[in-house]
């Protein structure tokens, strides 16, 4: 039996000693994502498929796993010049070190982007540089061991690929791409997670991440049409797979299936009806998101191709995209080299205002907030801001639309035209410096909840500030993962703040021709809430 003083000795208040080069990870529940189920690995024909969990002691790697990884690394170095550049040019200045929400929230030094990258870079040095081969540890080089591989898995699945650190890198190193490469290498030996592989596999099978088959897809539209009729008295139409429509609209599948996304979905449908848009949804390209991006470039390319194949099949002129996050990273930064140029489509022109979206002339795809902001700017919409008076709104810049396409002003312009009460979070937590929700890039799994709550602390902390200062009770955003991840995050850190999409606010404020007196907002809550949003002293 232990003596009291021996028990007390176990209460360790000082951090463990040791340098970063010694790989050491412990897979504790709540802090890692589960491995991908075998059937989904097989469906996508992924290498070394097996039932596997990160917490297993034996990962059952193929016998020649080191050879596979190093060959994969050599191939990627040859294929992606950016990868070699990012491996070589980092001077470890530390500008990125304190910019990661996971480091800020956890205090784990290996969440500093520079150090996370060093986990991979040290192996690159060992096998692909002369000084690494000759000097080993002295040159910051490490052998590729099982422990190193486990450490890669642990930390590359603790990066949401949000690219906040990249904003601060004086060399422009895209640390997100280092994580992407790290994950791609892990995939070569069959180490991947359920939350990425299953949605990607679903997307191949049914057209969307959630695995909604076409008849259920149609059914949800029928529900939405009924709901809009109840709300407004107007029976709208929502065309699906309609050949010859001018525009194909693609949204993340959560929009038509989940909450609070659903209310954004209603907002889209009401808006398109009101302006008489000649458009169609697709039951095949029924997913704007691209979980392939969190797996490998090849899978991202395959999923992205679906949207363009469908645009071609339906003979539309251009594509309008919904409130999604990483979808826009794919479109703006990869689509052209993946599957472009989309020269069978036309440069997008708004059929309502005549505005030509020159910036989308290559991808032919316009963001819904760009489209709606243009409608508002041209006074096309009749809006009653007071219908959103229940809400004191702040806006969370979703990482990918903000940092990958610089979409800052359009959503704000829409919110300011649909709400009377809008308050910005502090300047260093928004726009290109926005803090991630902590659940992006496939990390939104329930089993990973503690890690997500750590990573979401900086975002929640800024929300807490505007809640106390201005009485903010609604956080608007334009990303499906945000809409899923922020409600639990705020429930833990800032109870009393809800989450919505920007087009939910549009749907509330939109005065539709021939509509009945609205009694509730899209959530079914009474509109007459006078006094709830009075200025806070």
């Amino acid at each position: 039996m232990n003596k009291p003083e021996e028990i007390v000795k176990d209460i360790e208040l000082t951090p463990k000693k040791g340098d970063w080069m010694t790989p050491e990870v412990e897979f504790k529940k709540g802090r890692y994502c589960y491995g991908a189920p075998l059937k989904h690995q097989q469906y996508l024909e992924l290498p070394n498929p097996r039932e596997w969990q990160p917490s297993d002691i034996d990962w059952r790697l193929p016998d020649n796993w080191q050879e596979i990884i190093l060959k994969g690394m050599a191939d990627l170095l040859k294929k992606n010049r950016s990868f070699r550049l990012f491996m070589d040019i980092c001077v470890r200045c530390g500008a990125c070190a304190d910019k990661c929400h996971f480091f800020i929230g956890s205090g784990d030094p290996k969440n500093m982007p520079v150090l996370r990258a060093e986990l991979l870079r040290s192996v690159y040095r060992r096998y692909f540089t002369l000084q690494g081969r000759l000097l080993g540890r002295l040159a910051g080089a490490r052998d590729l061991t099982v422990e190193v591989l486990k450490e890669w898995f642990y930390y590359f699945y603790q990066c949401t690929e949000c690219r906040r650190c990249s904003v601060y890198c004086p060399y422009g190193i895209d640390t997100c791409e280092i994580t992407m490469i790290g994950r791609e290498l892990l995939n070569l030996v069959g180490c991947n997670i359920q939350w990425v592989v299953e949605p990607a596999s679903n997307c191949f099978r049914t057209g969307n991440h959630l695995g909604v088959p076409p008849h259920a897809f149609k059914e949800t539209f029928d529900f939405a049409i009924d709901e809009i009729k109840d709300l407004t008295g107007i029976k709208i139409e929502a065309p699906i797979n309609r050949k010859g429509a001018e525009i194909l609209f693609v949204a993340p599948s959560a929009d038509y299936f989940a909450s609070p996304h659903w209310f954004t979905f209603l907002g889209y449908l009401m808006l398109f009806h009101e302006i008489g848009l000649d458009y169609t949804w697709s039951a095949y390209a029924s997913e704007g998101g691209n979980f392939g991006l969190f797996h490998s470039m090849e899978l991202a390319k395959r999923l992205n191709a679906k949207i363009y194949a469908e645009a071609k099949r339906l003979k539309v002129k251009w594509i309008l995209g919904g409130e999604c996050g990483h979808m826009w990273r794919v479109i703006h930064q990869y689509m052209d080299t993946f599957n472009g140029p989309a020269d069978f489509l036309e440069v997008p022109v708004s059929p309502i205002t005549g505005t030509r979206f020159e910036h989308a002339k290559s991808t032919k795809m316009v963001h819904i907030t760009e489209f709606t902001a243009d409608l508002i700017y041209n006074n096309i919409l009749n809006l009653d801001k007071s219908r959103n008076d229940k809400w004191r709104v702040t806006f969370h810049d979703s990482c990918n639309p903000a940092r990958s396409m610089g979409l800052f002003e359009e959503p704000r312009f829409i919110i300011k035209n649909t709400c009377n009460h809008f308050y910005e979070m502090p300047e260093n937590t928004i726009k290109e410096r926005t803090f991630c929700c902590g659940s992006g890039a496939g990390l939104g799994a329930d089993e990973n909840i503690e890690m997500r709550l750590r990573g979401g602390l900086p975002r929640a902390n800024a929300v807490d500030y505007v809640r106390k200062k201005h009485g903010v009770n609604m956080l608007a955003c334009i990303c499906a993962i945000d809409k899923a991840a922020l409600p639990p995050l705020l429930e833990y850190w800032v109870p009393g703040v809800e989450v919505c999409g920007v087009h939910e606010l549009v749907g509330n404020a939109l005065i539709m021709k021939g509509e009945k007196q609205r009694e509730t907002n899209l959530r079914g809550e009474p509109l007459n809430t006078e006094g709830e949003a009075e200025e806070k002293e």
Partner: protein
Amino acid sequence: MGLKDILVEKRSEILNAWSDMIMDTYPPDAAVFYKTEKDRFLNPVGYIVNEGIGHIYDGLLNGGSAETLAYAIDRIIRVMAVQDIPPSKAVSFVFMLKKVLKDLIGIDTTNNVIIQELNDLYDRIEETALVAFDVYMGCREDISRIRMDEIRQHGYGATMNPHILKRRRG
């Protein structure tokens, strides 16, 4: 000079030492960041800890409101409950104040009145640690409940829309 006068006079010195001691439980790279970054939005952990221990210190000295004390403890413990920290380490930040006081206040050990006041203060600190343990458990229960809610409404980050559920059930 009574104990309270000493503690008021040395408030910032004591709080700085207490804060440093808490931050030193993190790995060195994190400790440096948590101690030096003063922007409350870029360093929420540092800000929350420093704001919280200030409230706790004032509450212990002046018998501040139970709500303020509970709020301050909750803010700090809520952070530690999601970090890679065992419960013993999480609540230990309260006890650290005792060590800081022993090191810093340099009281006259022959003054029985002050000794008694100090013992009373130590008792209050220990009671505060007990509250911190309750708060820690509450936070862990919150995490568990949030996770359970997600599992119940599973669908790749998508909490299934209640309207659809209702209609499907008829």
